[in-house]
């Protein structure tokens, strides 16, 4: 009987010893990680100046349609009649006719304001994030149309599946307090 209790004691001693060291390991891991911890949450963001409009945002997001949408930085827009983001390069008229539109889902609405200016509004419900208009606007216009991750749709995956395939590494994790990078200027701010 005594022998049994002795072996039991020994087992308990080893158990609690290992438990203590595991607890200490956990503590040191948390201590190390705490030095890098940030109170803010992180979200994914596209750097519109890095984006090359490859079209993967439309196909690789876990959401369908993609959580990436075209946004319009109105400050930059020239309100052109001949809009490189709205009209196909070979369009036969400057009109809203479907065959002239670059957008495959007709998500851009064109509205006349005053001669010769037109306003372009993105219908987020229709936009699939294919970046065709972004390409057109960047090539022929001011680049006021650009892609951005819309956070009311984004699941904020731990591992963003479009960030993984982005060829120009334009998608980065940023603090949630600075969730949106909307082009306010046509040059990157850091250059000035």
């Amino acid at each position: 009987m005594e022998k049994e209790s002795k072996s039991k004691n020994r087992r308990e001693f080893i158990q609690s010893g290992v438990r203590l060291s595991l607890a200490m390991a956990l503590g040191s891991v948390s201590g190390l990680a705490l030095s890098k911890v940030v109170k803010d949450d992180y979200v994914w963001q596209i750097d519109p100046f890095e984006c090359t409009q490859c079209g993967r945002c439309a196909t690789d997001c876990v959401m369908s349609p993609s959580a990436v949408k075209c946004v319009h930085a109105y400050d930059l827009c020239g309100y052109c009649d001949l809009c490189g983001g709205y009209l196909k390069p070979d369009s036969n008229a400057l009109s809203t006719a479907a065959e002239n539109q670059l957008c495959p889902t007709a998500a851009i609405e064109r509205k006349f304001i005053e001669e010769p200016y037109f306003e372009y509004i993105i219908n987020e419900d229709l936009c699939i994030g294919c970046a065709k208009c972004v390409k057109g606007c960047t090539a022929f216009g001011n680049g006021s149309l650009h892609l951005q991750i819309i956070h009311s749709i984004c699941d904020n995956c731990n591992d963003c599946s479009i960030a993984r395939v982005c060829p120009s590494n334009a998608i980065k994790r940023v603090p949630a307090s600075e969730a949106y990078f909307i082009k306010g200027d046509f040059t990157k701010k850091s250059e000035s």
Partner: protein
Amino acid sequence: MKKLKYIFWTVAFVVLYVAASAQQQRFPKPEFESGYEQPTTITPEPRALSLEYFDVLVLLVVLSLASWLVLKKRSRQGVLWLSVFTLIYFGFYRDGCICSIGAIQNVTLSFFDPAYAISLTALLFFLLPLAFTLFFGRTFCAGACPLGAIQDLIIIKPISLPKWLNKTLGLIPYIYLSLAVLFAATGTDFIICRYDPFVGIFRMEAKFHMAVLGVSFLLMGMFVARPYCRFFCPYGVLLSWMSRFSKWHLSITPSACIQCKLCTNSCPFDAIDYPTNEKEVVKSGLGPKRFLVYAVLIPVWVAAGVFVGERTHTWLSKANPDVYLAELLISNPEIKNDPDNIDVQTFLASGKTMEPLVEEAKIIRGKFYIGSMIAGGFLGLVIGMTLLNTIVFRKRQDYLPHKGNCFSCARCVDYCPVEK
């Protein structure tokens, strides 16, 4: 004189125009006369930070409740309803993200990448279940893990697997964990998140192959209970370490075991250890000799693991996009003329040269060289220890849950006829 003035103005205009155009957009913003008001760009706010902390609170409450239900209340019913809640909240409502299993990678990356900051939520999701397990056993698996919950709720007719198969398949989580840490530490990929079989089911949409994987896991789970938890979950490895030395743990019987054997078939996970047959062990007489052989073999296993790691590091490092691109461009230079290869075309258009890319790839490969050898050595140690464990004799008189493998689901509790 007039002509001179004209030239002067032209020159001035050109100089000013060039200077201005460097700072101005192609088509300047018009000045509207019709009183047009510019709309603002729509930017819906991300999920509020307070809600993220609320998730941590929910996790804390669910963990405490699960531990209380398992250890004090001893109620399978309660654990069942708690796992239904977990499935709905962390699974379907939170879309399976954030989860403790994936948080391993965030913690790892925060150690190895100085630029990477980890959010407090992710750290707490990693630490809380481990801390709870160190005290109460794997109650996290029982009630607080959505991946565990979805598998636990579809168990129909669990079959018992032979011991050797359980042990062998039980090595997979170690491999998965080492690879996940290796890929996270080198900043390559988060494979736990990428190959999470159930996240597609929680979100009700997934890529085809992930949907197939998820559904096949569920189908298999009807007969082989909790296949992901037992044979894949990398977080389960850490939880199992904690649980083996937990302060308290679920017990099948509330007082003394009467050896009625009613509980033996109750565990769908083969996690109940039977009393040891002392006579049989002594009779075989193989114990000490085999123990020595297996103990001596451990360094051999470790060496073999390091060797395999060293051999495979080149192959593993190809998972890194930078290494892959550099290799592709070196081994296959004509790919530069392929207009359909977006990665190569983007790299060429960016104006970057080969040297920094190759340099970067070499650094990453160096990390893989060391990391793969460590991972291989670790796996060798695990294999050696598992073998050694099969012959270590532990005296047991009662039917006891295996502390490492038991998910604390409390099924066995209902089978025990002993009153408190």
